């Protein structure tokens, strides 16, 4: 098994005719993902690569194309609308790659998607891959290898780095999920940890965090309270200088500065293995899975 995407994933690519959308649609098709539809308003009736039908709306992609998952490559000012259209059309998993989506837009998108009973991953994320089965997003397929370790990350390229190092070390992955680094995103660490805990084909989980916010600290507590599988983690930004913070609201709301040291301490206290360098993830995993 795997989490979120697998052989049953039938994908619609929103923004399939754009520069990034078309490039990555091809890559996903080459990887073996079932790309059943594309959406670009005004280009309905055409075919992408002489193969994938393009529709004007996501509704058609669901009704006529049979899509159950969507990936979004539309520009930032149109992304909120694209996410809501996908959920409204009945898509149950919406993955938004687009970077630069206004956060206030997300305050409307998030509850909308929840109410539709769909899952959103992202925005501003690299997507997900279940190696050997399906890839949705932009994670390069060739760096992955089928296996039994789950990976969840707030970062994009740092995810590739860690996955690549795992693969080189002979450690395959059940699924890798990039949740994105924006302040408001659809899926958080705990959602993914829970899914990995429930996935019989995942033995351990790697968690890649960053400075800022308190998601990693909460995830660490979740690991201690709810998980039986080993978890190891890395936090980027250990040497980041403190910013010139404006106003008091940030400190009042979270009571935390969100530093790497704070997060690594939370890992330590809750039994999450702490990697000082990305490469240290490998050694920690090997100790824990034997």
């Amino acid at each position, binding site marked *: 098994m795997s989490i979120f995407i697998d052989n049953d994933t039938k994908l619609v690519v929103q923004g399939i005719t754009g*520069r*990034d959308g078309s490039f*990555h649609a091809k890559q996903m098709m080459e990887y073996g993902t079932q790309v059943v539809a594309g959406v670009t308003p005004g280009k309905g009736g055409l075919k992408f690569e002489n193969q994938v039908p393009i529709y004007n709306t996501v509704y058609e992609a669901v009704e006529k194309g049979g899509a159950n998952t969507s990936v979004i490559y539309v520009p*930032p*000012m149109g992304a909120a609308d694209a996410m809501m259209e996908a959920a409204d059309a009945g898509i149950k998993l919406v993955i938004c*790659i687009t*970077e630069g989506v*206004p*956060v*206030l837009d*997300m*305050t409307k998108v*998030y*509850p*909308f998607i929840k109410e539709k009973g769909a899952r959103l991953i992202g925005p501003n994320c*690299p997507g997900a891959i279940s190696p050997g089965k399906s890839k949705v997003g*932009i*994670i*390069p397929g060739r*760096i992955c290898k089928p296996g039994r370790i789950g990976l969840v*990350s*707030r*970062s*994009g*390229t*740092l995810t*590739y*780095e860690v996955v*690549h190092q795992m693969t080189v070390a002979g450690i395959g992955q059940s699924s890798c999920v990039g949740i994105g*680094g924006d*302040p*408001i995103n659809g899926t958080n660490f705990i959602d993914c940890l829970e899914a990995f805990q429930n996935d019989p084909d995942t033995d351990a989980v790697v968690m*890649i965090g*960053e*400075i800022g*916010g*308190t*998601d990693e600290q909460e995830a660490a507590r979740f690991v201690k309270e709810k998980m039986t599988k080993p978890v190891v983690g890395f936090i*980027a*930004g*250990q*040497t*980041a*200088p403190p910013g*010139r*913070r*404006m*106003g*008091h*609201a*940030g*400190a*009042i*709301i*979270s*009571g935390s500065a969100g530093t790497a040291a704070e997060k690594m301490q939370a890992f330590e206290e809750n039994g999450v293995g702490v990697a*000082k*360098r*990305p*490469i240290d993830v490998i050694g920690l995993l090997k100790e824990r899975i034997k």
Partner: protein
Amino acid sequence: MNIHEYQAKEILRSHGVPIPPGEIARTPEEAEKLAEQYGGMVVVKAQVHAGGRGKAGGVKLAKTPAEAKEHASRILGMEIKGLKVHTVLVTSAADIAAEAYVGIILDRDSKKPVFMVSAAGGIDIEEVAAETPEKILKLPVDTRYGLRGYEAMRLGFFLYDDVKKVKVAAKIMQQLYAAFMESGASLAEINPLVTTPEGEIIAVDAKMVIDDNELDRLPKIVALRDETAEEPSEVDARNSNLTFIKLDGNVGCVVNGAGLAMATMDLVKYYGGDPANFLDIGGSSNPEKVVNALRIITADQNVKAILFNIFGGITRTDDVANGIVTATKANPLKVPIVIRLTGTNEEIALKILNENGFSAMTDMDEAVKKAVELATQEAA
């Protein structure tokens, strides 16, 4: 994007928030003139994008125009947290009977803008929050419906007993919320919201931070950007669509993705070096971005070695390779360069680099170690 106090006040004023008169001065003489115009006590306040201005001596009370001039001459040109003060706000001083705190922040946890109000406002509000959290009311707002009347009243009742004041406060909450939403803010704060001895409620200080992702649709807000208040190289980088933060080390880093960029800096430190910067060329990079990145990094005299760490996903590594070749043909490098590059279109990228006399590595730790070594040699 940060905006100045005086700009935040103008936005709030335009939404009806009561604020004492104030204008900016760029010279001590202008400050004196404004103090004369307002009469009575004024406050001279440094306009910089940093907190803790009062503690740094950047906020002073003046009884006379001459005193305002004197304060302005001391504050203008002073540095607060590394930022030079170019302007001061001169504003009528208010008599203070009580100080409240009102803020809105985009909250990761509730995924909503959250109002936070406290009757114990002022500069110690963070201690109040830490030690007596019951003195702060937090109220998340569903942006699909906006701040509802009863919510605004509830915030008002948390601050005041007198229903007249509560109604005034509720109106200010609505005005602040409207300003927050229309400006694409991630933070808006009035601290203190002052009650005068006469029972008037006025905003004496204001801060707003704008979500950078909003700027493409808010030209009026973009126009508020004060580039003199920022590090010049950071302004240059932003105009080239790069995210750049200048640091004090000597290893210039060019990386794609914020997480990998931070991890690269962490590794530079781990191997005994010091990063000269944080630089994220972002996704969808084109060769021109790389050219600009190299220009910005090589302009820093401290840089003794350049480290590229590119893991291509949406970024095509051949774009980066082309950028390196173009940039170094136009301006040959004076310091050594270490290129680590792997991912999308890697074969094409390596071919381009090899044909142009560059070698590239594929292991991150090895590349960082080498860059640190070269920088240390160059510096010696």
